[in-house]
């Protein structure tokens, strides 16, 4: 599974980071980036789904399903 954060949509709520710190990094202004080029380590797919379903700006999407 591979995910990405759309920088245009991200407003920096940091919900992704709060719920799945293994998968995201956020900068000083709160803008998020998917770690590891968005590749989700096996076993963390549920956390990726959780982050996606909690982002109020709809900024995280799946770019590659497994």
């Amino acid at each position, binding site marked *: 599974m591979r995910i990405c954060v759309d920088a245009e949509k991200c*407003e*920096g709520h940091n919900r992704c*980071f709060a719920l799945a710190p293994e998968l995201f990094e956020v*900068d000083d202004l709160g803008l998020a980036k998917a770690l590891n080029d968005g590749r989700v380590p096996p076993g963390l797919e549920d956390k990726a*789904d959780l982050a996606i379903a*909690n*982002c*109020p700006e709809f900024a995280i999407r799946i770019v590659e399903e497994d």
Partner: protein
Amino acid sequence: MTERDPRDMRPREGCPVQDWATDFDVMDPDYIKDPAPVWRDLRERCPIAHTTRWGGAWLPTTYADVRDMARAAPTLSNRSPGVIPPAPELREMLIAEVKEFGSELPPISSDAPEHKPFKQLILPLFSPHAVERYRPFTEQLANDLIDRFIATGKADAAVDYAQQIPPRVIAHIIGIDPARADEFVEWVRGVLEEGQTNPEARMANRRHIRDFFQAMIDERRDGLRDDAISALMTAEVEGKRLSDYTIVGVCYLLLVAGIDTTWSSIGAALWHFGMTESDRKRMYAEPDLYPTAIEELLRFYSPVVMARRVLEPVAFGAAEMAPGEKVIMNFPAANRDPAVFEQPDEVVLDRTHNRHIAFGVGIHRCAGSNLARMEMDVALRVWFQRIGDFAVSDPDAVRWAGGQVRGPRIVPMRVTAA
């Protein structure tokens, strides 16, 4: 319905709401206690309600409308985000100050393009990594507060705990002398609590706080320290240092935005657990629940509404808004919209689909959400660690406050040490 002068801002005590669609009252005691039934009713028959009370306002109740309105900046302007209009004498003073010095409380009271640089100025102070620095202080504080009451077997979870945490944490971050923290907390409460209905108290306490910050700036002219006020003194916005008025305004905003909001969330969470045995037991048994439980409690008990001012004619659904009118950004109602949330009126501690907007949405989204979350996390974890069992001892004595910020202000609890 009788016509009412829109400038008449006196509370209409003893004057019941006739129809929530055309006469809603955000200060109605039953609405403050539980607004959800009103929102359910309005969503079905009039999703954007209107009132002439409190200076007049529109009230959206669906997630889609609230989101669209948050994105409609600056047609819907942030220049006066207060839900209850300030008393006339304060209003005139504010207008005069804004003319002389610029936006009073940037970034919350500013629109684009002024908004962004101010927001970027404060965001680094409250990034997820920055706020972790304050976790040990917050844990110590929470433990000290519990030490004060645990042996007595009872506590007011709002007064003795929830309300003590945010003002002391923010005072610590700004750089306030701990010896003066109590005094400072009194002024803040004077503005936020008593000040809501008593304009003299509000102005007097506002003056104390502003003078206090000004004195802190003066003290630091010869030597900066490792605190937020020093950081603001060296910061630049568009190549220029900030004026003292602006630095004081930013610090003041951190107080009014970060204190009763967060204590309401902590208080509501404890009230919930104190009333709901099944959820209380789950928290003791399943510590992995904290992250989703906190988001769920933020959704369900969303404490904050903000206002917008209409600058140009604009329509949302059937609501035709005219310049000068006020719109209440009803984030709490959006968070109960059945079109977006399954079982919206139930607390589901492990809810996975939760795009709640308790912290707003769009460019004005809360700058302090990471701090608020850290404080909630610490306040709840320490409470559950130190207290073996607890329950609201007298539900009838519980009191809720509302208006701009909704949360319990009196929550008597029975507590047993762990």
